[in-house]
Every structure is written in C-alpha cells, then in structure tokens.
C-alpha cells in the first residue's frame, strides 16, 4: 500500500477551523449555518455546538491543531469570554491560532476586542460568504 498523501507533490493543506458557541445562552442555528458554509467551502470544521467554556475551546483547539477558532457569543460577557480565550491560548503557546467572533456585539465594543487580538467580528446580518472569505484569505496569508 502506498501512502496516498505522498502522491501529491506538495503537502496538502486543508484548513481546519473550530466552530463553537461560547457561554451559557441559547440556540445553535447560527453556528450550524457557519459550520456548513465553511464545510461547503472545502474546510474541515470541528463542530463543538453549544455551552462551551473558554478552557474547553482552547484545549480542544490545541488537540485538533486548528488554524482558526470561530466563536459565537450572544452574551453581554463577550469581552470577558474573549479575553479568557486569548489568555489561555497564550498560556498554551497557541496564540498563532486566529480567533474570530460573531454575535450581537455592539459596534463600540469591537475595537476593544480587536485590541485583545480577535482578528474579526461579524455582527448579525453579515453574509456567510464574508465569513468564508475571511477564513480562506486569513489562513492563506498565514501560510
């Protein structure tokens, strides 16, 4: 048996993205749609559904060796939750993983999140294609 992957001259780079809802709230319609859109764009999505804690997200991201983490937040605690995710990523020496977010986040809070290192924030109404584009382009430049 030959190793299939060796047949291609260049190592196959297939982006891996963890998609999850963080915090205690809600329903999973939005994250599911994002997960499907990314899959349909040829991305491998580790789907973690609802009710995740920052520690669960970061440890999972490390073991799955993802290129990016997409978090949906509907809670007023978004700043605290993102901050904790970024802190834990740094602690695990995994802060090269790109973090992006979505949810009902007041526009005046977005610069603060960016300063924490969150690469992009998608508010409700953002077309799914924009998220897909961000992931594909963002990861390409990362190499």
């Amino acid at each position, binding site marked *: 048996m030959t190793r299939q992957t060796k047949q291609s001259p260049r190592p*196959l780079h297939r982006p891996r993205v963890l998609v999850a809802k963080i915090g205690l709230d809600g329903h999973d319609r939005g994250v599911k749609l994002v997960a499907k859109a990314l899959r349909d*764009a040829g991305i491998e999505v580790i789907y973690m559904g609802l009710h995740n804690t920052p520690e669960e997200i970061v440890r999972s991201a490390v073991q799955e060796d993802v290129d990016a983490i997409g978090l949906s937040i509907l809670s007023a605690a978004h700043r605290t939750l993102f901050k904790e995710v970024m802190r834990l990523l740094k602690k695990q020496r995994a802060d090269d993983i790109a973090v992006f977010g979505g949810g009902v986040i007041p526009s005046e809070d977005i610069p603060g999140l960016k300063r924490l290192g969150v690469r992009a924030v998608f508010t409700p109404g953002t077309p799914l294609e924009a998220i897909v584009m961000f992931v594909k382009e963002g990861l390409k430049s990362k190499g």
Partner: protein
Amino acid sequence: MSFPVRQIRNGDFRAAAKLITAIERGDPSAVPILKALAPYTGRAQVIGITGPVGAGKSSLINELTTGYRHLRRRVGILAVDPTSPVTGGAILGDRIRMRDHLTDPGVFIRSLAARGAPGGLPVLVLAEALHVLDALGMDVIFIETIGIGQDQTAVASIARTTAVVVNPTLGDEVQLLKAGFMEIADIFVVNKADLPGADRMALQLAELSDAVNPAPVFKTSALKHEGLDELIKGLNDIGKKTRR
C-alpha cells in the same frame, strides 16, 4: 533527540497535535520524528469502535473514557468523520459527544476527516497517529470509524481489539452480516439497551456470531451509564487474548 520528539515524550499535547497534522498532510518532516518515536510505542491498548451511523460510538467512548480514567489510564481518541465528496470539506462532530473529557489533561481527542480514503478509513494516517499518541503516553487509544454503510473492516487491521456497536432497533440481522461486521468483531456491544429489544438483539448476535466468529456480546446504555464496567472488563480480557 530532536525537539518535537522530546516534547512528545514529555507529554506535550501541542507537539503531538502538530505531528498528527504533518502526518495528515503527508509532510516528509514527520518521517524522522516518527522513526525516533518508534522505540517508545507498542505499549498502548488500541480499541477500534465501529458500527452504523448514530449507534452511539462517540457517546460510548465518552463513557468508556470515564471508566478508564477511574482506573488511572490515560486515554487517546482518534475519531474519523466523513469528508464531503463534493467540496472536500467536513464537519467533524464526534468531540461534541465527548464533553466529559475536554479539559482533562489525561485525555487527548483528535478528529480526523476521511479525506476520500477507501472505506472511509484513512488507515495509514491512523496507524501513524496511533504511534504518536502511544509515544505521548496514552495507555488506551480508541479509534472511532465513520458510521456510513461502507466497508470499515480495515479498522481491525490497526486495532488490537475491535468492538462493533449496534442498537436494539437495528432489526434485520442480515444487514449486519452483509456489512462484514460479523467477521471483524472481537466484541459486540448492544448500545441503547435502555430501549426495548436489547435482550433479543443480544441473543440474535450471540447466535449469529457463534456460527461465523464467536465473540462475546455486551449490553450498554451510554445514556444511563449502564453496563460500562462489564464492557471494560470484557475489553481488557479480550485485549489479553489478542495481544500481538
């Protein structure tokens, strides 16, 4: 010893995860690292978990992991899900059923996409990823196959013990025979035994397996946390018998 080798031998999850990615990509840099890790492998108990879609494979692994953690064994999990043949993308959703162990430093869970491997099982990637988890210090390693009705019998070639998980409602035993599951099972698990029909299914399986390939049958409920200690004992007994 090269840097990643030392890190993995020291139990560094990030280094192990990166090496598995390199293996998946067919990156030649993985080859010398795997070679250097080889002396530290061959120790783990490798258990294949296969069976139809939705039989409860992931839920059962979650429960078994709880049991093995009580026995102070470190647990590695490699869970395969299908790749979309059209786009090449995948939704890897087994981890969501393994909620109880996401923050346990003694449990390493990695989801893998089938990426067009024959039968939906990337056997060579799995075989090398197993070595990584073994060298990382995992005592028990589960491989979860994709659940679609493809030929997944190849899991038996890399797992020391293969458990075939079915449900009471599966009904038609001819389906099982067709799928090639009967031949590869070291152990049968009737999961969802909280639903009616489990005893009948267990009996049918026992009769069938007597004719084809005698293997013990266990009943579990991952939902109600039942039958798991017995199953772990069964897996360990079989493990001893089939040790290579």
